[in-house]
């Protein structure tokens, strides 16, 4: 007798059909909440500019304080590397797939970039001539600094370029208009520079500057730079390959950005207590060296040959000990957390100890990224040696120790070898 029927409790209550409509309405509302912002990001409506005007604005704007989230996506056509799953946030993950970074910069000489893993982080903090890297996975900090003499020279140099200070030969420095014109003229020697339809990046209207190489021999189809319409700061760079017209092979751009000065606590860094800290002294190159290292300085170091021109340039390095580089410093690639093997019986444990690599204190270090195996996996054997071929760059390592690098198809490299 206590059976209840599906009849509504009161005459004014909605019918069963009306009740079942409620989840339907909720589903539609959820779908709309997801879909509407995606549809709303239509093309921006901005006044037309020429490439030269756009470059002038960028040159005028200069560096500014910025903080935001950057998503980096590489579709280089390389074999899948499960690096991030193995080691957490690791710079090696940038070889393929998608990574999220967070960026803070005060627009001058202090900045922080953090590569985010699910529950890990790899940070690079720069303060003038000093820099720190910190990996949360192995709780390890590396401090890069100049020695005292170089630091004094750096400070003197920094003082000279500080705004307000008198710049020697300041009258000779080009104005932003001249710099933009020079840059444009240089780029147009072997590429077409155009302005594409405006777009929206990180919710901001942006112009798109397109550089398309006129050279057919290169793998690069075009480079697209999205420039913020308001602040003229670059918001996104895409590199498209000729082989893949669907999606850019390399894309790095803000998904969220604010042009405000970051908090001082973010830009400050000191090695956390208990972390392993490594000190690295970086030599500051002498002034003549710096000039030689600049592109277009004309001289190339010994053992380096350049053939071709423009976008299809092939650089050949001679006498490189690739095997040594590859087989060498595997330890620097980090250990894999949680991978140590522990077995019940002592005999079994001893057996494992025989095979598991250990560090100086006899602790199991866990399996390491085998760079030799990584190299074998990334490259393929060809008659000339080993070839790494991606959608944007080809690298050929020959048996006689030469390394050929170029943004050209693999066959062109093999022909050159």
């Amino acid at each position, binding site marked *: 007798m206590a*059976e*209840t029927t*599906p009849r509504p409790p009161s005459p004014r209550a909605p019918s069963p059909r009306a009740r079942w409509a409620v*989840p339907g309405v909720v589903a539609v509302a959820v779908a709309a909440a997801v879909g509407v912002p995606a549809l709303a990001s239509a093309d921006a409506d901005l006044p037309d500019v020429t490439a030269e005007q756009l470059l002038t604005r960028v040159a005028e704007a200069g560096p500014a304080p910025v903080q935001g989230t950057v998503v980096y996506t590489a579709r280089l056509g390389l074999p899948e590397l499960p690096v991030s799953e193995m080691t957490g946030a690791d710079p090696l993950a940038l070889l393929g797939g998608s990574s999220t970074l967070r960026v803070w910069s005060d627009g001058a000489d202090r900045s922080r970039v953090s590569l985010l893993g699910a*529950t890990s982080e790899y940070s690079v903090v720069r303060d003038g001539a000093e820099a720190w890297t910190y990996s949360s996975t192995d709780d390890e900090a590396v401090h890069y600094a100049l020695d005292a003499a170089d630091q004094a020279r750096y400070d003197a140099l920094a003082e000279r370029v500080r705004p307000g200070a008198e710049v020697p030969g300041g009258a000779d420095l080009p104005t932003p208009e001249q710099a933009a014109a020079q840059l444009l003229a240089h780029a147009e020697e072997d590429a077409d520079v155009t302005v594409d339809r405006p777009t929206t990046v990180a919710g901001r209207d942006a112009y798109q500057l397109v550089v398309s190489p006129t050279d057919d021999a290169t793998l690069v189809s075009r480079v697209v730079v999205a420039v913020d319409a308001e602040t003229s700061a670059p918001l996104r760079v895409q590199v498209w390959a000729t082989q893949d017209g669907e999606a850019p092979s390399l894309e790095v751009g803000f998904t969220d950005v604010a042009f405000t000065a970051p908090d001082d606590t973010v830009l400050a860094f000191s090695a956390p207590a208990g972390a392993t800290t490594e000190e690295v002294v970086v030599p500051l190159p002498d002034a003549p060296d710096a000039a030689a290292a600049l592109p277009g300085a004309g001289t190339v170091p010994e053992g380096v040959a350049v053939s071709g021109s423009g976008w299809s340039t092939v650089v050949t390095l001679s006498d490189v000990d690739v095997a040594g580089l590859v087989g060498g410093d595997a330890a620097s690639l980090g250990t894999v957390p949680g991978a*140590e093997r522990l077995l019940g019986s002592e005999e079994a444990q001893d057996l494992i100890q025989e095979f598991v690599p250990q560090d100086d204190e006899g602790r199991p270090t*866990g399996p390491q990224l085998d760079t030799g195996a990584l190299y074998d996996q990334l490259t393929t054997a060809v008659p000339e040696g080993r070839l790494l071929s991606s959608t944007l760059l080809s690298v050929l390592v020959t048996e006689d120790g030469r390394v050929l690098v170029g943004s050209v198809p693999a066959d062109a490299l093999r022909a050159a070898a």
Partner: protein
Amino acid sequence: MSLAEAPAAPPVPAPAPVAWLRLLRSELRLVLGRRRNQVLLAGLALVPVLLGTVLALTRDSALSGQGPSFVGQVTGNGLFLVVAALFLCLPFLLPLCIGIASGDAVAGEAGAGTLRYLLVVPVPRTRLLTVKAVAALVFAACAVLAVAVTGLVVGALYFGLHDVTLLSGSTVPVGEGVLRVAGIVAYVALSLTGLVAVGLFFSTLTEVPVGAMAATVVVAIVSTVLDSLPQVSAIHPGLLTHHWFDFAEFLRVQVDYGVLGQGLAVQAAWVALFGSLAWARFTTADITS
């Protein structure tokens, strides 16, 4: 007899909020007083105790500082025992407990044959379902708190509480560290609300409580599996479990509340969808047992 005719002129009907609270109190007493649920909570509280004891015993051996994320930091700072224990419980143990509590909510009564008697009482089905949902949510919160509070106590006893080194390498004072860990606990608890709604919906579908419990746990596991397949990356942001580990955001130098808000918005969407499905099913179903 229909639900509408059930009240044979109730003598003095209590005002709605009072009646609601009275119903909730009896439901909470039922859920939290059930021996099975108490054992579940005790089992969850045992995780940080075990973890802390193992880490305390091995801290001077060659094995210290090893383990998945956060576990290595526990010996240096007891606060991390809360984070490490939640990290270990989140993939399976917590969903299991949530599944048992929420899957049992309606199906348990139906299975035991008490649901039809409950419906004879002049209580609208909507109110009954709301009370069941709130009780399941309270149990979920208790489950997370059981892990967190024992983690804090055991961690403080074994290793002490110290300044917290964030994932970004910055160090914050212990007071702020406690606040950040409290944020993690709150985020983890709120992350489980979607699963509670799913469990409640399954619970209204069947009279076999074990079926609803198993289905809820399976949903959590399938969601995790889908989340690990790059081929379906398009649906990842909407998956129930995708944002669960975003609690790590609280351990970054600048907490991005946008990321956390996204995770909570996904949970809200699951709650709205499966909550309304459960409501539609429960208020229209033929309840015969």
